[in-house]
């Protein structure tokens, strides 16, 4: 019924292709009353959301069920939002133009903290009551999954339940329970009680939180019988025998990652201490080469994409990378499909591998030493040696590359002036490495190194979770110091001022009292905070003032090793004891070997799969 009105809006907005759907391989089902309807919402704009592999998996998996219809929803860009509000059109699904509030289950994926305001805004646009306690029996159940669901207490008052971990199995289970509940006449709470029995489902309203006078948490306890104190994440043990969609939607407009994404494995063996993904996705579980080649072949046939990337946290750690790459090249070269290898590590980069990816197209090379000195790299357990970087750079220069990008972080724990200046010195050494190669062996005439820094955001479920974040002004001073120290014109240094990092830290480590801040911020117009054109620091500070909450409490306070953390409800399989040990080792500058070198006893063996049993 809203379609005609929507069409008129489309004529007035930029990029109408964001809203039209009907892409190849999109699923259009006939709705029948017995079906369970799931709105899969990505709290960002279409071209970002459509780049996300997890959404593609769950969308096709749910639609493969005969009893379920799953439709996509993205955050409308500001121009479209204004049109929708002006015309009185609620937020609609992409496939059938059905109002989101008419769906049974409304799921959001939490990929980054700065999308939380978009969730509030989308609920508001949908006409769904913002607070979970305000929803009636006929209202949709609002739930969230994705990496931030492990520590999304700021959303707890707005969300009916969270799904922790990998969704391939549990999403089907909550649909099954919904079907039984729908016709039972039982209350909302009874549905939540049923699904709370599933491993991986966290229902925040079943927990009471009390606070100490200093604002730290005094207690965090279940308020019902049979509710676990901690909710364990779900994982897929056998990566070859799980749902892998092969008929992926092919968007009309260009998306951020506009290519086939081949997921080689989940998890990472490395254990870099700043990296949340390195802990929450443990243990490492690989797919077999045979399975991957089959998936790749089918994906090429069903999408027609001109590019394929191997996506995983640290792709070059795949145990049979050469075998896989050879197999993939056989599938792609004749079809002019470009094979790209993101996330390369410096220490196992080889000429052979580089030549393989070069066969189709040569692109720039990016490495992430993360810190400027060996001392600090040891602190963060980034096991990359300067020699490795120099060796790699030389291989790359001899192979015809002459542009290298280096990524670093500012504001890491224990950082000193020497570490900051070390970034510029390392970049200079890469330049020197180019000129150490005999002229006739290096291909390009000149060389350039681009250095980028971002501000460190200590994250839950890492050994640095107890660390305070550097003040933004301190990090800016460091960036300026680095900028001034770089005099070589062949080194380009990029950094941007980013109060966003501070907000990201507040919402990464915040508790459920921040829910009202999110609601206040949305009323003030906060949205798309990950986009510089929208992020408005002053509005956020206003929202904190309205709610009488000091954001610095969450970002700049060193947390006590024994205090109750807002995210203690989630059991990611890695023990807090292990994280504490890693924290202490960091301060001693001791490194920890990768999972393949030696088991460090993090706790992930309890899942009985993956690298722990290789």
């Amino acid at each position, binding site marked *: 019924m809203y379609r005609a009105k929507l069409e008129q809006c489309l004529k007035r907005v930029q990029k109408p292709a964001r809203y039209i759907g*009907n892409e190849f391989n999109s699923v259009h089902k006939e709705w029948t009353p017995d079906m369970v309807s799931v709105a899969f919402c990505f709290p960002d704009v279409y071209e970002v959301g459509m780049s996300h592999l997890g959404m593609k998996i769950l969308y096709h998996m749910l639609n493969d069920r005969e009893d379920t219809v799953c439709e996509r929803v993205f955050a409308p860009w500001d121009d479209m939002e204004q049109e929708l509000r002006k015309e009185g059109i609620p937020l609609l699904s992409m496939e059938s133009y059905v109002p989101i509030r008419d769906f049974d289950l409304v799921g959001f994926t939490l990929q980054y903290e700065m999308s939380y305001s978009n969730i509030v805004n989308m609920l508001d646009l949908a006409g769904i009551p913002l607070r979970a306690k305000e929803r009636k029996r006929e209202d949709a159940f609002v739930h969230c999954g994705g990496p931030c669901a492990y520590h999304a207490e700021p959303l707890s008052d707005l969300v009916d339940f969270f799904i922790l971990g990998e969704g391939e199995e549990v999403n089907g289970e909550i649909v099954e329970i919904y079907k039984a509940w729908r016709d039972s006449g039982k209350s909302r709470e009874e549905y939540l009680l049923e699904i709370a029995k599933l491993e991986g489902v966290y229902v925040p309203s079943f927990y009471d939180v009390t606070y100490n006078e200093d604002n730290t948490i005094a207690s965090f306890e279940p308020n019902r019988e049979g509710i676990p104190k901690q909710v364990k994440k779900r994982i897929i043990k056998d990566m070859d025998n799980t749902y892998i969609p092969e008929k992926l939607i092919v968007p009309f407009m260009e998306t951020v990652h506009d290519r086939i994404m081949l997921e080689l494995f989940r998890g990472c063996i490395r254990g870099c201490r700043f990296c949340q993904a390195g802990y929450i996705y443990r243990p490492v579980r690989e797919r077999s080469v045979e399975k991957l080649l089959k998936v790749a072949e089918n994906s090429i046939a069903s999408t027609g994409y001109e590019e394929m990337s191997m996506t995983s946290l640290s792709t070059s750690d795949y145990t049979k990378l050469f075998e896989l790459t050879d197999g993939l090249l056989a599938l792609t070269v004749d079809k002019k499909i470009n094979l790209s290898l993101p996330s390369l590590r410096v220490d196992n980069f080889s000429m052979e591998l580089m030549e393989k990816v070069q066969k189709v197209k040569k692109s720039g090379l990016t490495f992430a030493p993360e810190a400027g000195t060996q001392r600090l790299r040891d602190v963060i357990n980034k096991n990359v040696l300067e020699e490795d970087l120099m060796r790699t750079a030389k291989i790359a220069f001899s192979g015809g590359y002459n542009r290298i990008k280096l990524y670093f972080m500012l504001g890491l724990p224990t950082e000193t002036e020497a570490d900051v200046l070390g970034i510029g010195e390392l970049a200079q050494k890469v330049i020197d490495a180019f000129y150490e190669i005999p002229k006739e062996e290096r291909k390009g005439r000149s060389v350039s190194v681009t250095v980028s820094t971002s501000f460190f955001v200590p994250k839950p479920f890492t050994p640095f979770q107890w660390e305070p974040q550097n003040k933004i002004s301190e990090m800016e001073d460091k960036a300026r110091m680095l900028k001034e120290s770089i005099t070589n014109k062949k080194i380009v240094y990029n950094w941007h001022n980013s109060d966003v990092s501070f907000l990201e830290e507040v919402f990464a480590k915040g508790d459920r009292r921040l829910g009202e801040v999110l609601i206040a911020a949305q009323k003030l117009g906060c949205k798309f905070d990950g986009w510089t054109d929208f992020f408005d620091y002053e509005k956020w500070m206003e929202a904190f003032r309205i709610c009488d909450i000091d954001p610095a409490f969450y970002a700049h306070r060193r947390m006590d090793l024994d205090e109750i953390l807002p995210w203690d409800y989630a059991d990611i399989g890695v023990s807090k004891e292990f994280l504490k040990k890693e924290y202490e080792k960091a301060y001693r500058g001791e490194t920890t070997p990768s999972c393949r070198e030696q088991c460090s006893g993090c706790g992930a063996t309890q899942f009985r799969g993956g690298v722990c049993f290789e």
Partner: protein
Amino acid sequence: MSKWRVVFSKMGMGKYISHLDLLRCFTRAIQRSGLPVVYSQGFNPHQKMTFSLPLPIGVTSECETVDIQFEDGLTSAEIQEKLNQNLPMDMKVLAVHEPTAKAADIVSAEYQMGAMTAGVVEKDALRKFFGSGEVLVTKKTKKKGEKQINLMDYLHAWEVEEVAEDGFKLRVVLDAGGERNLKPDILASAMGDFLENNDVSDWEIHRRKIFWKDEKGVQRIFD
């Protein structure tokens, strides 16, 4: 290798797909179809494919054409079938044949234009608009400039197809092609201004035919 002209429709929500996105959409559909397309030589090989007359965003069509080079040995029926299996739902191949004219020889196009209005627009009012001889509008030129043009110089034929209580339907033939081209939405907006009392709220514009010129005179690109 041989060149084929593929005539297709772009309907429904497909009207919001830009020309650049359409190109990518066809590239991928051809790749999926497995049809033996010919690639250009060079550093960044691409499929040999040429669209004739870009369709403005917001306009549907039943007469779009794209010329594609395939290896020899295909039949038109085979190309049509395989492409239709692989195109998104809003696009459909209607015919495949050997190219009969060059895109450069396109001279005009026929559009159906439906207006939604607040009240009845009398035929006389429409006649008055088309009979006025001069309707000046500002047209953007390729070189980022603007120029004043008389719409009527670009109009070959017009006809009122239908007048109803809440709108009217027209059939117009406008200049089209590389030499002289008028987008139908420029005409629509000028008419909206002219009929300001009738409050034109929305237009549905559809391209029905494309005409080209050869030694035999003006022809239709597809019947």
